[in-house]
């Protein structure tokens, strides 16, 4: 099963005000803790798979990227599929992942899955999804989620 996480909604629940940006470590910490509560106990012993939808999120800074994405991956075996993501978001998340030797998958608008971070780690994530039939190879040779 893939857990769906609406990052904009989690952000809105996490901070007072109407801000749409994932910035600052305190904000990142609160957002991550909400996500951790949401995914806790759902794995049933399997690697957690979560689809984090960034639609509606303005800016994400390096501190927040580290506090949310990198720490979620550092603290548990997980496959994070980042959707609704812009090049600007990737610019903050990619170096943070690479710095820790980690990777996530990004889901492009056409459904294509791509690696973000360390290539070998990203390939292992894709293998995990394919093995659990959560992703499949498409005619063009690219991969996409089967439930998308």
């Amino acid at each position, binding site marked *: 099963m893939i857990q769906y996480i609406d990052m904009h909604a989690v952000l809105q629940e996490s901070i007072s005000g109407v801000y749409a940006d994932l910035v600052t470590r305190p904000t990142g910490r609160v957002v991550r803790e909400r996500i951790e509560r949401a995914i806790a106990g759902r794995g049933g012993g399997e690697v957690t798979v979560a689809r984090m939808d960034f639609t509606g999120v303005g800016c994400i*800074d390096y501190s927040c990227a*580290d506090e949310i994405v990198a720490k979620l991956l550092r603290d548990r075996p997980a496959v994070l599929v980042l959707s609704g993501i812009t090049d600007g978001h990737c610019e*903050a998340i990619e170096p943070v992942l690479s710095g820790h030797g980690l990777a996530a998958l990004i889901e492009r608008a056409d459904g294509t899955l791509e690696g973000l971070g360390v290539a070998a780690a990203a390939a292992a994530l894709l293998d995990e999804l394919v093995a659990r039939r959560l992703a499949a190879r498409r005619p063009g040779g690219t991969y996409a989620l089967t439930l998308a």
Partner: protein
Amino acid sequence: MTRLVEVPAHFDDRSFDQFAGAFAEASRDDERLLFDAHAAEWASPYGLVGLLAAGQAARRPGSGAAAERPLLTAPTNPEVLSYWARAGFFREAGELFEIHGKVPRVKAAEESEVLLPVTSVRAAEDVHAVVSKIQQRASAILASELSLDPKATMGFAMALSEACQNIVEHAGTGGWVAVQAYNWRRKLARRVVVIAVADAGVGFRHSLEPTQNKRFGDRWGDAAALEAALVQGVSRFRDPGRGQGLAGIRRYLVRWAGKIAIRSGTARIAIVPPWDDDVPLKDGLPPFPGAQVLIIIPEQGSAER
């Protein structure tokens, strides 16, 4: 008795050391300070937020009374006075200084050059407000006037966020940020966007001392602390994910041929782009509390990316 601190006529990062020297000299005997800006002709965002930091540091501890605030004589040139008001300086200075001279009641940020008026930063919530505001104001200017790729707008907001968080996480007190665009004839003859951040907090050396002092041994000081933070990405926190902020700012600036300079205590470090002739590291400067950060992003045009 009151001690005089002269505000340089052209007050920017280049004349800041002269100001810091006067401030250090006047602060020695713990008398009330008078910051004299009556002859000021121009001040950069760095000068304005630096002056606020000096005002914050000059409040004598334990006083609390309005009478114990330092004095400030406002610029007498009406244009300068009007500009300082539009840049949001007096809105923040009113709490820190006993101001002498007529201050115009002008709303801040009514012109395109002032992308973000002088704004106080005390908590994470303030950083959210700053980032939100700058994205509304700056994206058009960054793309149309500086010829930056629209993608660079988010990177700019990230850099601003990380620079402001430095205050929230490390200063131990509040600080200020200002962002402006202007024609920089002196160095480049093209437009630039400048981010200036200043606080009068504990500074980099004090912040990093518990974790880095032993590693550097005899070399430990303000310059070593700045080098550790900006070049080596060291943080006072043991969490391996820390230190991302300044590293991220550096990456962004390398990509857009930008510059960052950080002054803290008696030292100043800079990542110097090809168009500038600044010194990478200076030590033995007049002491000044906290940290002052300058970020410059030039109009792209013919600049190498």
